[in-house]
């Protein structure tokens, strides 16, 4: 057993990492094993975070045909691992970055939709809720009112914005802007 593997086993034991994920880690090439160990230590990743990171990195690696070490060497990852902020905060941001790498078009589409929704400048009392992970094409419009005047005001606002809302629905449904 190499020193590197001993260090990985030691960290895995301290975190009670499931055997399946320890095996997955140990089966990586040496540069990837090492890079992930350094990152787990730097960001003080918890057990569930290591599991999630291993799964996401494995899938991104297969999708892109790249080593995990190369994925972790990207500037967007370096910014998180070497940047300021608390370790838990950076760990959370690291996993979000991995999810963005794993689902790039989904993330881009969500950002584009959220930008379009923000541009509507809807008043307090109207919320547009996107389906979770865009798993459907249904937009939820939530109204919060406490009297009839408030209701009328929000409904009028929705009617004024109906073209923009239709555009957002078209984007959700696979329109050309996706």
């Amino acid at each position, binding site marked *: 057993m190499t020193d590197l593997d001993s260090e990985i086993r030691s960290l895995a034991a301290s975190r009670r990492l499931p055997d399946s994920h320890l095996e997955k880690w140990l089966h990586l090439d040496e540069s990837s094993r090492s890079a992930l160990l350094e990152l787990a230590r730097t960001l003080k990743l918890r057990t569930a975070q290591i599991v999630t990171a291993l799964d996401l990195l494995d899938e991104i690696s*297969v999708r892109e045909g790249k080593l995990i070490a190369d994925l972790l060497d990207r500037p967007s990852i370096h910014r998180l691992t070497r940047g300021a902020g608390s370790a838990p905060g950076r760990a959370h941001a690291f996993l979000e970055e991995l999810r963005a790498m794993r689902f790039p078009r989904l993330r881009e*589409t969500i950002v584009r939709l959220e930008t379009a929704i923000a541009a509507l400048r809807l008043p307090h009392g109207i919320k547009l809720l996107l389906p979770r*992970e865009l*798993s*459907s*094409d249904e937009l939820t419009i939530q109204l919060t009112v406490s009297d009839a005047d408030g209701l009328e005001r929000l409904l009028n606002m929705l009617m004024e914005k109906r073209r923009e809302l239709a555009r957002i629905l078209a984007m959700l*449904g*696979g*329109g050309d802007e*996706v």
Partner: protein
Amino acid sequence: MKFDIDALIIAEESRDSALANRMEQALGSSIPVTYVADPRAAVRPLPVADPFDAGKRRVVVMQRRAPFLMACPAGSSQFTCCGYLVLVLASNCPMDCSYCFLQEHVANNPSFQLYSNFTDCFAELERLAASAPGRHFRVGTGELADSLAMDSLTGISTDLIEFFRNREYLTLELKTKTDEIDNLLRTDPRGRVIVSWTLSPDAVWKSSEHRTASPSARIAAARRVLDAGYRVGFHFDPMIAYPQAEPDYCRLVDELLDTVPADRISFLSMGALRMTPELRNAARRRFPNDPMLLGEEVLGGDGRLRAFGALRIRLYRMLQGRFARAGVPIPAYLCMENSIAHKRVFGAAPANPATIGERLATG
């Protein structure tokens, strides 16, 4: 096409059947043949690393006790359906697509089953036709097995065509990823048989569709059966939204239309890759390095993973638009999608399943 077969197991009750005799003649000199009183044990998983793959090479000829004819298992009230009916004449497939639902569906009985009493399905079909006089039905054999993969050994297509070609209200669909068409070219279908191919771009074929004919070979085979009097259809299913999917699918459509004129295509279907989480896990265990299994799928309301809605609808629309450029309306439908998706892609709500089925059957 040639596939590796390790063993031929014949149930005693099927020993004198035409199908067993054909299989023995074709394979008996090259592989061990075993006769068993009870074939149930023979279809179960072997204690090996990949029992599903081992099952593909273990052919069991036996009788089917359940009905042969059933509604398409993909059908659901959640989806717009095409009215397809399925004949189960075999179970499992010698090819090995990484995304195949059989990895989950026949995990407990993975041996390649061929049903020696398959001609009993003809009585079921006669009853079906008699149950709704004047209505057309499209009936296929390519759901739990490829329709033609083993046809050079079984010759089942000839029996089926001879039955269907004399039935005005029944249309047979043979669905395949092979170019195994020699038996078809020897038989006149009298317009009552559709041969349909699942088509994928080369990138998907190379990555995921192991032991299948290349897309170009499938298209060439389609042209040959078309010239021999068959109708042809194409299933773009599963469509996989990998990063280069759009230009690749466009090239595939162009190649198809260069070989098969649009006005000779009986129908098209489209369906996004969908997997239950269990199927995806099984597929990933068997094909850990296939990137096609790792698209941007999210879990939908039916418990299946699919590319997120906007992405797959965009891909459908792109493909539909490419065919529309040919200037000939080709009947088309979506598989396992709802009516809103249909409307987004085709611009109109779909007809009911019976009407779609009728339209596809009559062409």
